[in-house]
């Protein structure tokens, strides 16, 4: 049996979280569990009002956790994330799926979280504390709090690249995805590369990031990054693709992303 508790605000809802409880935002993940009687929870908590504001200033971009993918696509301020949001689900899913929910999405979902990891986002929890995406993702299975917002630094749009690799075209779930924030122009000064589908959560390919520093984005310059891109990753093995396949193609897709080759 399932019980539902509705609170007025997110802060109130955060106080109601507990064992065998899930927070319902857009429903695209939690309701699947409801429909299939996921044994890990029997209680749902929701909030009548959710923070959905999308606002950028000179420090960065703040996105309320309740903003949907459609809200992102309608906001000029969030333009940098449009390539990612545009490829999540279909129109109906985009009307429902929230930014906050995507942070908790288990493989094979979580495209936005992958992009936010590459973009060095910080996660703000109910109560005010913030932490970097990386530590948030590492600890998310034990997370009891609720996310109120994600905060991105200022990013020049041309520095961000995104590739979603799926078998079904034009839309389909990710087999793997790659987000890259490459700063510096023709010679890379700083690189952040995140993979989705290559681990239990989105993971940074730190060895590849290091190998790109001070390099140019040409075949010779990226060789080291391609050779090291699998370090620290644990490619998934599932119905979409085998671990072997992901291992084989991840460097290929990274190369295409870095050289902007047509797919």
């Amino acid at each position, binding site marked *: *049996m*399932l019980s539902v508790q509705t609170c007025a605000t997110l802060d109130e809802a955060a106080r109601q979280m507990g064992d065998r409880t899930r927070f319902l935002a857009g429903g695209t993940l939690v309701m699947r569990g*409801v429909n*299939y*009687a996921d*044994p890990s929870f029997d209680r749902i908590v929701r909030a009548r009002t959710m923070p959905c504001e999308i606002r950028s200033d000179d420090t960065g971009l703040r996105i309320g956790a309740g903003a949907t993918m459609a809200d992102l696509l309608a906001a000029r301020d969030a333009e940098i994330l449009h390539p990612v949001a545009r490829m999540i689900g279909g129109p109906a899913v985009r009307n429902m799926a929230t930014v906050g929910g995507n942070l908790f999405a288990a493989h094979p979902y979580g495209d936005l979280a992958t992009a936010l990891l590459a973009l060095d986002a910080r996660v703000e929890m109910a109560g005010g504390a913030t932490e970097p995406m990386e530590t948030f993702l590492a600890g998310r299975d034990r997370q009891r709090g609720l996310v109120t917002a994600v905060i991105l630094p200022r990013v020049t749009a041309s520095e961000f690249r995104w590739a979603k690799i799926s078998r079904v075209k034009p839309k389909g779930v990710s087999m793997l995805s790659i987000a890259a924030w490459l700063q510096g122009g023709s010679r890379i000064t700083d690189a952040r590369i995140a993979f989705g589908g290559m681990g239990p959560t989105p993971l940074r390919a730190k060895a590849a990031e290091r190998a790109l520093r001070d390099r140019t984005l040409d075949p010779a310059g990226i060789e080291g990054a391609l050779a090291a891109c699998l370090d620290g990753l644990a490619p998934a093995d599932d119905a979409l693709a085998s671990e072997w396949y992901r291992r084989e193609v991840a460097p290929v897709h990274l190369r295409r992303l870095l050289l902007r080759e047509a797919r």
Partner: protein
Amino acid sequence: MTSIEFRKDLFADERDDTLKEIGQPTIRQDILGHVTGRTPYYDDHLFDGLLHMRAVRSPHHHARIRSIDTREAERMPGVRRVATARDVPNNLNTLLSLINFGKDDEPLCAHDKVRYKGETVAWVIADTERLAREAVAQVRVDYEVLPHVLDPEEALKPGAPVVNEVYPNNSFDYHERYDHQKLRFGDVNAAFARADHIVEAEYQMSPIEQAPIETCGAIAAPEQNDRYVCYTNTQALFFSLGTTAKLLDIPSSRLHFIGGTAGGGFGGKVDSIVEPTAVLGAILTGRPVRFAWDREEEMQVGAPRGAERWRLKDGVMADGRIVAREFTGFFDSGAYTRLSSYAIVKGTGHLPGPYFIPNVAANVYCCVTNRTPATAMRGFGITAVDFAIECQMDRVAEAVGMDPIELRILNAYRDGDMKAHRRKAKNTALIECCQVAAGKAQWPLSGEAMAQSSLTGGGTPERVAIPETVTDDEGRIGERRAGRTASTAPSRNGRGRVPSGQHGATIVAAPPQNPDMQIEADRIGHRMGSETPPSAMGPASGAAQPSAPYRPASQTGGSIVPPRPTPPPAAPPPAAPSVPPSAPPPASPSYGTQPPSAPPPAATPGAPHDAPYQRPAAPEPEPYRPDKPFSRGTRRPGSSPFLSGTRRR
């Protein structure tokens, strides 16, 4: 709407081209319902007090069931009934038993053993689907996991685990003789020795899930006249009806099956599992019960098109003629036969493809493995072998340095050619298809290839001859498991010989595997082996069966109708019938009270054959009086309560 191009120039003298429907715009008769959301799929029937039934499923490919503990599940809120194999009156069946093919090998619910991942072990019926799911999770099954086999060739090896004791050799038994289907025509080994090239390759197709948008499901409910209604999306309504009657030991007259609308099927809705399950639920609870697969079950438990592996070996002359083709085929039937035994027959009948090849040999195996049982899907039984054949043709073209389409045109069968099944090819059209397709694709063909025709060149003495055929006895049932037959391919040393010009011995379907399985065709209005074509067959009247034997038209002196239980006095036959006995049947169905035969009155004496047929003047109708009063079901001694045969005891 896509357009159709008519090529009326091809085979123009073989048909009447006044097409009234093809090529004309039309509206699907059911599409108004689709676009208004009113098409009544099985789930679009609302019942008060509907209960939801879910299955407990095996997580193992192969395991013995030590015990099933349902006590916890039974106590859970909203649970109305927990059912197991014990609750199925007749828990062993095979789909094609209804047409007398194969042995009963599959339980509706496993009792001692599970043979594939997802097999049903028990059921829960509860007030809501969620409550049913929660209770399913509380059923405790103690399994002893057994070694499993998931590859059809591995399953045939002597040491492989026995998947299904009904077929202890992990292969379907064909004709009580062999563990495979044999096709032999000519002498492939002699032809290989003569050939300029040998082209060998292996092809494989994985199981393919039909994945209709609507999953398999049924809702069954008790009706007020002591019947059960069942709304289902089956593609095989009468199979579902007969299978349900047999598994649940309930006369088919007590089953009211309503189907006809499926949200996609593609062959995946023929296995008739959800209907007996839903009806069982309705019987056990006395309530309406819904049983449907969710999407995960449709993928994992729902039968896919079976995996196949084919080895082809061709003997080819330098000029591109294929003189010999040998097949070794494996069809992964999964844990239970269902329709696969028939798929292999169909597939074997398809060999060697639409080509004239004077020496053909094939061994085709229906293998039992611990995979999800396979079933039909679009082009059932031939899709994978056609894929193999056509890939092989391209390989052959490459080997001889020939254009692949021209190679096909060269080898295509033509009208009159003898096929490997010892029937002449007729109405062939592969050549024209190749020519038109090549034209559309702007693929250049030589003048010679473009000049070929299906109507010429076939049926010459060499092409119509039935060659001397080498046969062999390898692969008898049980030999493979005993380790006495190593190779699955057709024999290199066949010793038997069927002389040329002969059709060989006819293999008919094996006699009923169990004396209980008799077909009583005339019970359902069919005639077996009669020479007169049935025409005006009225339905049997009520439950009483005709007791008079069937008499052919010449004896009843008129139209062909089934004998009546209480025939009213027949009109006296005229001295000279003015219309020949093969007059067209009366305009209205002749059951009820009209006489079985009354010759029409002469319209114009002296011109009997020009007289238009006139309906006989009907005598005063007699009140209907069956010779046996209506009783529930059939109680005639020796009769079967099932639609098409006698149930197994």
